[in-house]
């Protein structure tokens, strides 16, 4: 008993740390880690419904093999999800960077504009709005279909206008997804000390030069965080094709074992993509640290 009072400072420190974190860990184990390992176990088995609940029969990697060989839907969907990700993430990053640069300047109504740029995060994450828009078409029909076309037709030639509006639609999608990224970039921009710009100006650097020599290297860590965030976001969005497919397999078709195998394959694909991103950014990140 008395031993407890003789704990060293260090072990007391550790003990206190663990007692703080314990609630979270308990919740995490119970609702994340255990279900995760259960789904890994299920993915290696065949599930059969019997009197006393689900019964698992071991089948090894059959489900994983089936995903790439017999399933005609999975691989094309995976490809299209990857292409969407590859085209959208750079667009999101560029748009977010541009908006952050603009929003970071000192002007009237800055707070208002920042609010507006963040608004889609609030609304677009609502499942309801998505459903509402889905009823129109598979994509957001805000510009391409509505009477805006007729109104603007007098001003801009029709062929050009139609393409423009379709493009505006896809741009809207990109913009909706970049609310958080914009905030992260603004955060990064504000940590750069104005003295650096001043010094560059004294040395005769133009705005263009000081962007590439100061701003860009300094917010490299944010570019990295944003890339990760956008990739994960585009992979785990609920309207993503693969997520939809997994959901259907697991819940509508009730093939839970196969569904979780698909989930794990998907998870591995995401990890590979993220590993590549880590590898690309490793060099530029260490360069920034040396400078900083």
């Amino acid at each position: 008993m008395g031993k407890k009072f003789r704990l060293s400072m260090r072990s007391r420190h550790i003990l206190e740390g663990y007692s703080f974190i314990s609630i979270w860990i308990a919740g995490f184990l119970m609702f994340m880690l255990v279900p995760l390992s259960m789904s890994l176990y299920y993915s290696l088995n065949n599930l059969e419904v019997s009197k006393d609940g689900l019964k698992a029969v071991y089948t090894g990697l059959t489900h994983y093999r089936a995903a790439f060989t017999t399933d005609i839907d999975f691989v094309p969907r995976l490809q299209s999800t990857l292409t969407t990700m590859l085209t959208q993430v750079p667009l999101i990053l560029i748009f977010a960077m541009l908006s952050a640069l603009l929003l970071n300047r000192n002007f009237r109504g800055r707070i208002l504009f920042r609010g507006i740029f963040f608004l889609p995060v609030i609304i677009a994450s609502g499942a309801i709005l998505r459903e509402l828009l889905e009823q129109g078409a598979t994509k957001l029909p805000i510009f391409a279909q509505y009477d805006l076309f007729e109104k603007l037709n007098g001003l801009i030639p029709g062929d050009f206008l139609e393409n423009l509006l379709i493009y505006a639609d896809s741009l809207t999608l990109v913009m909706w997804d970049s609310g958080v990224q914009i905030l992260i970039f603004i955060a990064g921009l504000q940590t750069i000390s104005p003295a650096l710009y001043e010094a560059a100006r004294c040395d005769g650097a133009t705005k263009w030069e000081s962007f590439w020599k100061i701003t860009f290297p300094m917010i490299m860590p944010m570019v990295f965080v944003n890339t990760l965030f956008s990739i994960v976001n585009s992979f785990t969005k609920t309207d993503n094709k693969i997520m939809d497919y997994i959901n259907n397999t697991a819940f509508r078709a009730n093939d839970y074992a196969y569904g979780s195998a698909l989930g794990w394959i998907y998870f591995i694909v995401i990890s590979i993509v993220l590993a590549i991103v880590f590898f690309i950014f490793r060099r530029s990140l260490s360069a920034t640290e040396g400078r900083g």
Partner: protein
Amino acid sequence: MTGLVKGKKVDWGGFFLYLFLTLFGLLMLAPLVYMVSTAFKPISELFLFPPRFFVMNPTFLNFRDLLLITGTTSVPFSRFIFNSLLISSCIVGFGIIVSAMAAYPLAKHNMPFRSAIFNMVVLAIMFSPLVVQIPQYLLISKIGLINTYWAMILPYLAAPVGMFLMTQFLRQIPDALLEAARIDGASEWKVFWVVVIPMLKPAIATFALFSFISAWNDPYPAMVYTTDQDMKSLPLAIQTLSGGYGVVARVGTLAAASLLMIVPTIIVFIVTQRLVLQTMAHSGLKE
């Protein structure tokens, strides 16, 4: 910022700045405007072809229909609103405390397995939530929590995102501040409440906003964990109202309901907005 201030010439830069921002801002606002205008459209305009962006003869019919439809079911509509409010505020409130308590030692205590735990959190963020749903369901039903509020609250408390955000934010706070409190004789618990929590305020506001948005809009927990009609949450009630996929007949009512749905999130955004922008400004995202 002084380095960016313009000279006193004709301010073309400023002009283009406003032009761009207004243009993009309008694009951003378009979905909201579309939703508002749909909510006020009478039937005759809802199915116009080609559809119209703006409403011609605004009407409150959709809102009246919403009340009438929901009035005919056995459970009053206010019950769904109450359920949703209760669940969302519990998730936000307890979630903040749990995440903050976990973030504090992860950022400031030098203990074994610290980075292992943190990496696990980052991994957990990447995993698709769908896959864990059935094991989670089995677990909940085994403990006997089906059809209780707990079933819809507990699984969401240990949120990886909140913990990640707060840990990153806390790392920036100087250790000296905590040391000073300890030297003055404060216990760890007291340091946590008196020093850490107030310092964390911006991160807490950010997390509160995000977790409120996701909890408020998510129909899945009520769909999976409840069978009773009076335990349903608002998003699920609205989904059933629309009649599921492919039913177009109540588009107007649905739009009215959706408009009512986003009102609380906008209120939460307005309340937390200043702190959220602040977090991002000084946030611990700089690694």
